């Protein structure tokens, strides 16, 4: 794990760019700016695969626009001790408590919680804390809406993503993920992917490694796209406003919300 805060910088040599796998022939090596993002969480398993794939997708754009997102694993205590440096953002794929502590300690950088569905994390309403994972209440609201419409059903779940979901270009996304990793894209892979995709969307529009600008970008953006058929934005409480898929095993049973297109019918909206 890296313990030294990185400085966003322009890479100078073609050799370095090649080493980093920058799309040679797209942006010239002289123009490639490194965009470091701290990663707090496991470096294996689904969540890590999602983070890697999100950075991969961002870096396809980066190949055209002259940047490269670097996923830099770091421990929570190290980060708290040494600071966040000039990183673009922090993504937490482990314990929700880590996202809480880091976002409180470093209010000037965006912290993305991609793994915890604890409602308490949303209720902090911290300006720089964002959750791509749906909250517990979002899930329960989605399941209630489904049951109201279809009656009791055994074994159903409400998920942000499912590898069998095909609409809204999800089949393309699932296909690209499984081609890249040889594994299906499950929910936590998607929530990690979405955070990095958002960072990759923000950087070329901000034009520099700008952590404060990243927070404002997320707060003010008109929406980003992660193959859910909706403009995805964040609520004031930092929760990603998103539809959820009702699933039973490999079967897709429906798309919540039901009988409305109001995404705010799932989970709390206001800060508590």
């Amino acid at each position, binding site marked *: 794990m890296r313990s030294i805060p990185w400085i966003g910088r322009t890479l100078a040599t073609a050799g370095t760019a090649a080493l980093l796998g920058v799309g040679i022939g*797209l942006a010239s090596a002289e123009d490639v700016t490194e965009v470091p993002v701290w990663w707090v969480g496991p470096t294996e398993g689904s969540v890590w695969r999602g983070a890697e794939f999100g950075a991969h997708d961002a870096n396809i*754009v980066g190949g055209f626009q002259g940047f490269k997102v670097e996923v830099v694993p770091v421990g929570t205590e190290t980060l708290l001790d040494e600071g966040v440096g000039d990183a673009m953002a922090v993504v937490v794929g482990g314990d929700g408590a880590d996202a809480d502590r880091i976002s409180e300690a470093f209010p000037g950088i965006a912290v993305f919680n991609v793994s915890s569905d604890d409602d308490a994390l949303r209720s902090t309403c911290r300006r720089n804390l964002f959750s791509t994972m749906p909250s517990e209440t979002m899930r329960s609201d989605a399941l209630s809406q489904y049951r109201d419409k279809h009656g009791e059903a055994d074994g159903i779940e409400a998920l942000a993503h499912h590898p069998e979901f095909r609409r809204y*270009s999800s089949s393309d996304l699932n296909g*690209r993920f499984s081609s890249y990793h040889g594994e299906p894209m499950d929910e936590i892979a998607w929530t990690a992917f979405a955070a990095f995709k958002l960072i990759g969307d923000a950087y070329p529009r901000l034009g520099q490694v700008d952590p404060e600008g990243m927070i404002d970008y997320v707060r003010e953006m008109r929406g980003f*796209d992660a193959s859910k058929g*909706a*403009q995805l934005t964040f609520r004031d409480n930092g929760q990603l406003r998103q539809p959820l898929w009702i699933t039973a095993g490999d079967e897709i049973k429906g798309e919540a919300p039901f009988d409305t297109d109001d995404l705010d019918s799932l989970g709390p909206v206001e800060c508590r």
Partner: protein
Amino acid sequence: MHSFTRMAGALTLAGALAAGQAAAGTPDDLTGRVFISNEWDATLTILDGDTHEEIKVLEVGERPRDMGFSPDGSELYVALGIPDQIAVVDPVEMEVIRKISGGIDPEAMSVHPESGHIYISNEVTEEVLEIDPSGDGEILDRLKTGIEPEGNVVTPDGNYILNVSESSHMLHVFTWPDHDRIENILVGTRPRELATTRDSKIAYVTSEVAGEIVKVDLEEFRIVGEGRFRGVRNPRPKDVRLNRDETELYVAMGRSDRIAVLDAQTLEVLDQIPVGERVWGLGVNRDRTILYTTDGDSNQVSIIDMEENEVIKQLQVGDSPWGVIRHDWHVDDEMAPR
């Protein structure tokens, strides 16, 4: 390959044809028929251009989507997403002549007005392929794009190939014939389609998830206008066409189930025309007085009078109509208007 030498400046395509291209027919040779690709029926529905009555349903191959005519109008090309082919259809005889390679999962296409080569998006490989439609469809070049390349247009002057990458939110500009990618312009989230003015100076790009359209200056390569479809509920713009004098834009609004009519200068909404569910593809007649819309979830085509902005007819076609194109424009007058 090219049968003539490309000349500098405002060489007309009629001049190019006179300079050595194989003799082409006159507009009178064209049938006026309307061809509709039915994505999940493996068919084309073919309408009479005068009566708008169905005259044939042609088995064309699995997952037909975008279409384009050869410069002389003698061949219709249809992208087939599942067998990874392009069907070559005789629009007069209404038969499939042959099938050629289409790369992998071919979707949106445009035909170059001078070379006659097909430029077609391949989502999986993140490329636009240049395909020679003669013979078995040799892939002549691969133009690298961002993630999920979609809408694809050759400018009417033949100088540029324009492509939008859905998941990378960019308009890519490639030169012709060298295929140098000279610009990657960031546009709104999930760009889907585009149209250019007849003089090739302006492109309009729709972005589905952002719910916006941008106007791009193709001389300066910069965005000079942005429209957000105020007054349209849940805007999801997809295909786009210009009217005859290019003062108005017609935009298919997807699951908003309507066509939005915009002022081409201000990009403000002038009118809304309700059509069927999930309207997606658009086509126009030669005079740009009739607009055809594919209403995908209604399995329907709507036909709109572009002067009155009224639906004059709706008819059922196959399963999930995707694209529509009318066989009545000609290369010696102008490109297929889009």
